[in-house]
């Protein structure tokens, strides 16, 4: 079978512009052949090159004294957590594959991010996921949702990694284009950091893991175009098939091999497979690499060089081994019954040279291919719809006449309701480290000796550490005000960490947007990156890496701009770990922060869950977050937690104060079918002159509900005053109902009913 001729149509089909093609000709000094065209097309896709977003990404804060490996250097960033230990973490999207084949698309998303982590030499210890779908009233959305959740469960459970937290939003804008962002965190010692560099001229290059097939051909390029009926159908073959059993073995074998010091460089074959792993490792080391495709294990007969180079078959790794240590690779991979092959060598040519049965099929300068993709400054224009958003006022919105009914509506809305239908399908406790399981503000895991990769010297125990993490994004806020909305995304993630007792260490973000060629979309991207960067700076949570997923739109339009932020923090002592639910009868319930932001004309109702669900309005300027005040709140909260008085802490976000209080009453789950319900008597009559819906359901930022024993309440108020944070006693815990009294009305709900609505909402929608 001969290669097709290079025509303008073929170039376009590969997602390359005429200008990009000229650039390729300039780099090569000649016409590319078919294989080379394929290689450039995947490496210069948005997914691999960030060609549309790189100038924006440069504005993120990426440095801190604790960062050992920074953003963009390697497959994942690494942060020092003290005592010679470090964590590696990253988030990555698998949106388009999940739209086409939800089970495998989501499963391989989990597999891919786990590989990014153990490639760094770290042992993966937990994952979290951020998911978005259309509304569950659509049968197609239910199919996608159940498929994605089952796919994540399949891969993570079998691999043996706990899925400890996440978020799930349901909004019409994601119909047909769900978002699946998977995060993984691993642990290692400082000296165990592995690098994805092809170092040492003459060192052999090994391929380990299962054979290469035709699955996942050019998935990176597929991810970098709009999703249409047609593209989805054509690209079904671009979705890979995951084998978590294989990945578990590959990981154990790689960590065992890394402990021998025989490895000079290691990289997974993720997006753009063999192509990306060879040219990136050579580019990082400033070397060249030569491989022979005839030596690559192949699953299908008669695969062409084009197919082998672009395949995204899963669970494969590229390992550069110090010359003379080849026997160790063989010994360890044979022990794990894994395929391996020596496929090439590191050279001094600076070129990526690919041979097939003696014939040279690709010859490209590695660094130019990996690092010199074109960079675009796209045109940006403020979206039209924002005029209407800013003009919207509460004048035409009548205050609530049925606060209890509204609360039930909100608690039963799948976006706010308990996600137990999701996380009970995930093993969230394997590895014996889940200190706070899904269902509180942030997950907390314990890191202990066996969280680390083995090492050659068999160093033993280490001090336990407690790591908190959370992924967040209120995309409606970002849609309604990209800059301010993005700030609140980061603030909410940081607030969730503070509620759990943690101090942020760093963050990783996944920028999910529509087509950047649309100036209005690019404006959303630019403005929200500005907000993210500013807020990450404010909370000392530098960005250590992440992923950009553009072209998230279907024929009905783009998704809401969704910059998902996963933030990771450290909790110094076990006794500082704090959960969101009320603990004891008779405790005082306090609010830290202002009950409502009176400077906000929307009183916190812009973009709120209340306006969306009760009034079917997705508009209004969303609540603003003052980063200085927010920081003061977190400092104060942590200081109160450290002093030992805080029994519970829960952030006020979607659904406002009433939803937050209800969750404090109903969210503790003792065991199957056994919730622990603890009521509350709340008196808000001190807060006068605020409409009832804004008081109960407004989403004013920088607020946290805490509970403390009654005798401590006065002390906590005094301490909050010293720390410069508004605080008020709202009431006390006790009984079996949530009762709220305010000047404008009252609310009284039986907790069993609230719990049933909240706990079972998604199961009912899926039944």
């Amino acid at each position, binding site marked *: 079978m001969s290669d097709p001729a290079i025509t303008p149509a073929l170039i376009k089909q590969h997602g390359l512009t005429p200008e990009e093609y000229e650039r390729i000709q300039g780099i090569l000094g000649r016409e590319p052949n078919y294989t080379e065209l394929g290689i450039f097309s995947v490496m210069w896709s948005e997914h691999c090159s960030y060609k549309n977003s790189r100038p924006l990404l440069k504005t993120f804060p990426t440095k801190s004294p604790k960062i050992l490996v920074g953003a963009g250097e390697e497959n994942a960033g690494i942060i020092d957590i003290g005592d010679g230990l470090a964590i590696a973490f990253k988030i990555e999207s698998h949106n388009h594959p999940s739209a086409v084949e939800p089970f495998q698309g989501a499963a391989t998303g989990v597999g891919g991010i786990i590989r990014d982590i153990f490639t760094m030499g770290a042992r993966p210890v937990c994952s979290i996921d951020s998911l978005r779908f259309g509304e569950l009233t659509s049968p197609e959305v239910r199919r996608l949702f159940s498929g994605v959740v*089952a796919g994540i*469960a399949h891969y993570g*459970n079998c691999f043996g990694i706990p899925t400890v937290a996440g978020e799930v939003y349901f909004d019409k804008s994601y119909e047909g284009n769900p978002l699946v962002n998977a995060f993984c965190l691993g642990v290692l010692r400082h000296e165990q950091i592995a690098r994805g560099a092809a170092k040492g001229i003459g060192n052999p290059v090994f391929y380990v893991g299962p054979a290469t097939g035709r699955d996942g051909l050019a998935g990176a390029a597929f991810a970098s175009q709009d999703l249409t009926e047609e593209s989805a159908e054509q690209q079904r073959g671009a979705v890979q098939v995951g084998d978590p059993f294989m990945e578990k073995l590959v990981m154990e074998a790689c960590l065992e091999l890394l402990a021998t010091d025989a490895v000079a460089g290691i990289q997974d074959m993720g997006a753009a497979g063999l192509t990306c792993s060879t040219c990136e490792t050579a580019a990082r080391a400033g070397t060249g690499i030569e491989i022979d495709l005839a030596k690559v294990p192949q699953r299908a007969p008669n695969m062409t060089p084009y197919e082998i180079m672009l395949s995204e078959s899963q669970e494969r790794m590229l390992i550069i081994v110090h010359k003379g240590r080849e026997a160790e690779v063989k010994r360890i991979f044979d022990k794990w019954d894994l395929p391996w092959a020596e496929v090439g060598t590191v050279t001094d040519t600076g070129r990526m040279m690919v041979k097939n049965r003696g014939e040279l099929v690709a010859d490209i300068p590695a660094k130019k291919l990996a690092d010199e993709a074109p960079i675009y400054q796209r045109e940006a224009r403020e979206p039209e719809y924002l005029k209407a958003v800013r003009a919207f006022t509460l004048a035409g919105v009548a205050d609530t006449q049925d606060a209890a009914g509204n609360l039930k509506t909100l608690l039963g809305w799948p976006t706010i309701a308990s996600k137990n239908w999701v996380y009970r*399908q995930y093993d969230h406790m394997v590895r014996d480290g889940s200190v706070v399981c899904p269902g509180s503000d942030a997950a907390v895991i314990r890191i202990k000796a066996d969280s680390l990769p083995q090492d050659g010297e068999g160093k033993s125990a280490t001090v336990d550490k407690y790591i908190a993490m959370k992924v967040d994004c209120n995309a409606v806020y970002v849609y309604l005000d990209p800059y301010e909305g993005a700030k609140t995304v980061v603030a909410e993630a940081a607030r969730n960490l503070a509620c759990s007792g943690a101090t942020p260490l760093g963050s990783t973000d996944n920028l999910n947007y529509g087509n950047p060629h649309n100036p209005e979309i690019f404006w959303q991207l630019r403005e929200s990156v500005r907000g993210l960067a500013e807020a990450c700076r404010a909370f000392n949570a530098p960005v250590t890496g992440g992923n950009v997923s553009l072209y998230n739109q279907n024929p009905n339009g783009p998704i809401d701009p969704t910059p998902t932020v996963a933030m990771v923090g450290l909790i110094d002592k076990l006794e500082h770990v704090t959960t969101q639910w009320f603990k004891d009868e008779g405790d005082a319930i306090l609010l830290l922060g202002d009950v409502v932001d009176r400077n906000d004309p929307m009183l916190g109702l812009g973009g709120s869950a209340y306006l969306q669900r009760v009034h079917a309005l997705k508009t209004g300027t969303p609540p603003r977050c003052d980063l200085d005040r927010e920081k003061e709140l977190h400092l104060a909260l942590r200081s109160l937690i450290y002093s030992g008085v805080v029994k519970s802490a829960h952030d006020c976000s979607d659904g406002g104060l009433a939803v937050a209080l209800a969750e404090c009453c109903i969210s503790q*789950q003792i065991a199957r*079918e056994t919730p622990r319900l603890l009521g509350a008597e709340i008196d808000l009559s001190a807060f006068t002159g605020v409409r009832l819906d804004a008081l109960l359901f407004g989403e004013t930022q920088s607020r946290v509900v805490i509970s403390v024993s009654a005798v401590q309440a006065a002390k906590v108020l005094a301490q909050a005053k010293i720390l410069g944070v508004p605080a008020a006693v709202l009431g006390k815990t006790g009984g079996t109902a949530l009762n709220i009294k305010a000047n404008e009305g009252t609310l009284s709900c039986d907790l069993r009913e609230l719990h049933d609505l909240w706990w079972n909402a998604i199961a009912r929608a899926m039944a």
Partner: protein
Amino acid sequence: MNFAVLQFPASNCDQDAVHVLRNVLGHSARLLWHKETSLGNADAVIVPGGFSYGDYLRTGAIARFSPVMQAVQAFAAKGGPVLGICNGFQILCEAGLLPGALIRNRSLQFRCEHVFVKAATANSPFTSQIPDGKVLRIPIAHGEGCYFADAETIARLKAQNQILWQYADAQGELTDVANPNGSVENIAGICNESRNVAGLMPHPERASEGLLGSADGRLIFESLIHALESKSVAKAA
């Protein structure tokens, strides 16, 4: 005591079992690779949870052919204690060391959550230290944990007091709602006729430290350690 914790390809609760036995309970525990043919100086064998061989064919169906399982068969035949947890329980059933089978949960979904289980008898090396009437709070995490056996086998299990643990509610009642997977008779775990081989779906190694929410699972390991120390089970080596 010396524990051998078997390690099959894609065992994934192996390190957790070692952690609890070694660091929480202070005993010697080591991982034993499935290609080994000897159990060495082991006083007891733990077959841990996970997805041996990916569970692609049928849970535990391939693991039972691993070389180490021959050694386990011989060890069990001499009266050595063997405890299978989750996938380990499934492997022991496939290996014929325990009767019955574990089939797909009736929800058709994987379930990970805390459940309550009650020891049905104190008469076993795995339950002797569980106080009478105590309801244990221990997590499950499985997709195929629905215990099934024909009526004859169930009758025999009952007659010989081989049902060791049953799913219950907080008050210890064996209700249908408390049964997370549809197991016959709310069975969470059983033992063989000689009472030296047992398996259960819940994960006691995930409930052995207060910081993980429950330490009730320790009672199961402590029962086994007590039995070994008082020599009420054979030292098979």
